[in-house]
């Protein structure tokens, strides 16, 4: 029997396969299609202090082997999440990780504070990299100094394990990773979406109402693997790999370059059971290759 479990920030996960924020709702939407109890963790849609209605449509465009989104972080707000969604999620035996963002240092602190007092949340994932909020947290994800300060302040506001989600829209993911570690992050996750744009040549209008959006899906996987490799080699804290994972092989690619766990994003749209199939695929791979513990593969890359 293969041991798929991994430990991150003092938490034990039954397997390293989590669902990524913004692609799995509040978890419940998928329960007819898969057994949530099989997942390593569920990362919920990015929460903010106040409910946010997000950007005007169109909000998505299909691109070669990927998609652009400019959802604008629409969410029910932290209060409604705690009251309406979390109680239902608690019924499942799966780690719930609350992804959140703020439009200011204070909002980050306050939102994190509220979430960390709730029962049934295992960890927080801090989004410092969403490309869709314009005035808001975009600059946060870019300047290493700001990252360190922001993470430090949130760190003080919460007791829960804190995962910092990094932006790929940078020339230097290593510095960003080190800053987050310095600020007190327990783990990092990478990557969020790459900023992209698409135009309808007939109407000459951008295909997204907000002009630019975040690119996700298999198209970005090579960039994500590289960045996770760089980040993992720059810090001591665990890194969680995200970006274009569709199959167990894709997930393994991230683990081999150093990710302790992975998150499944766009693939949930292609197949609602994708994450569970990836878990099965990991088990099959380990059996075939005679790997007893999947964690033995973490960082096994031969460079």
């Amino acid at each position: 029997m293969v041991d798929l479990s991994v430990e991150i920030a003092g938490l034990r996960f039954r397997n390293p396969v989590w669902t990524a924020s913004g692609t799995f709702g509040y978890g419940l939407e998928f329960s007819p299609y898969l057994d949530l109890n099989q997942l390593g963790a569920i990362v919920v849609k990015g929460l903010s202090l106040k409910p946010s209605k997000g950007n005007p449509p169109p909000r998505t465009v299909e691109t070669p082997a990927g998609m652009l989104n400019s959802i604008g972080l629409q969410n029910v707000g932290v209060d409604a999440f705690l009251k309406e969604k979390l109680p239902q999620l608690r019924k499942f035996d799966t780690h719930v990780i609350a992804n959140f963002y703020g439009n200011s240092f204070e909002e980050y602190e306050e939102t994190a504070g509220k979430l960390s007092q709730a029962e049934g949340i295992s960890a927080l994932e801090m989004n410092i990299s969403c490309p869709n909020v314009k005035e808001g947290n975009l600059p946060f994800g870019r300047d290493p100094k700001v990252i360190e300060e922001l993470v430090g302040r949130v760190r003080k506001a919460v007791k829960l394990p804190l995962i910092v989600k990094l932006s790929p829209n940078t020339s230097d993911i290593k510095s960003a990773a080190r800053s987050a570690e310095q600020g007190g992050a327990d783990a990092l996750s990478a990557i969020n979406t790459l900023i992209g744009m698409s135009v309808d040549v007939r109407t000459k209008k951008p295909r997204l109402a907000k002009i630019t959006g975040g690119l996700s899906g298999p198209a970005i996987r090579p960039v994500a693997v590289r960045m996770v490799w760089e980040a993992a080699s720059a810090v001591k804290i665990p890194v969680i790999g995200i970006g274009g994972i569709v199959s167990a092989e894709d997930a393994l690619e991230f683990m081999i370059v150093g990710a302790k766990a992975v998150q499944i994003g766009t693939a949930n749209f292609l197949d609602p059971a994708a994450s569970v199939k990836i878990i099965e695929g990991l088990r099959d791979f380990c059996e075939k290759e005679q790997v007893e513990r999947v964690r033995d593969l973490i960082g096994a890359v031969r460079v």
Partner: protein
Amino acid sequence: MNTIIFNKELSPGYFHMGISAPELAGKAKPGQFVMISVRDGRYDPILRRPMGIMFIEKWGIEILYQLVGRGTYIISRMGPGDPIDVIGPFGNGFQLRHDRDIWIIAGGCGLAPFFELVKQLSHKMEKGKKITMFLGARTYPDLPALGLLERFGIKPGIATEDGSAGFHGLVTELVENSLSESHGKDGPLLLASGPFGMLRALADLAVRRGLECFVSIDRRMACGFGVCLGCVVPVKQVSEDAQESGESGAGISYKCACTDGPVFNAREIVW
């Protein structure tokens, strides 16, 4: 994986497909839709394609689709016996009302979701209540599957923009004309599906004439599950608390076409 039973071109560019999917069919209602994978092991095109359910049978479902791009091209090339990855049903579907006159207004492939509706309603309508159908298209060849409607004894009113069949003009004009002839304030319930402009004109007409109107809204959809939040439709905001952090116009909030819809009360939408 499901299996294709048949896939035939009804008229140039319009296809009728039967898919063996008993479980899915068992849960389906008129006006709901499915999400069809066009990947076949490849990552491009990557997203599923939403398709309205045309007929619900014991053995599966039928769909009616138009060839408009790469995804529908891929589907059009599949044949009987081929596996097809279909999930669903998604969406709210139409409410079935036997106690009212129902006017169905469809543009092009917007016709698809009404076949099953008519099938389920037609023999159950209360006395004196009937179903009337109006179909609009740019030109006559864009009116597929008319023959199939005959099964239900329905002869739709037809409007073509080029005058190649029926009323020469927009289907909404035809509806308006037909309305003026109808009398009584207990007017028909309007159910519509088709291009956005047609639906908007109809919503406007419904308000002007004090009619109830439900429309099936077509949006680009990435997931179908209500999780990507990509398919939103602007609706009139009821409560005010979702305003602060959004950037959109005041008085508007967003609902998902895939889970809150695709059928909306036309009055709810901010057109």
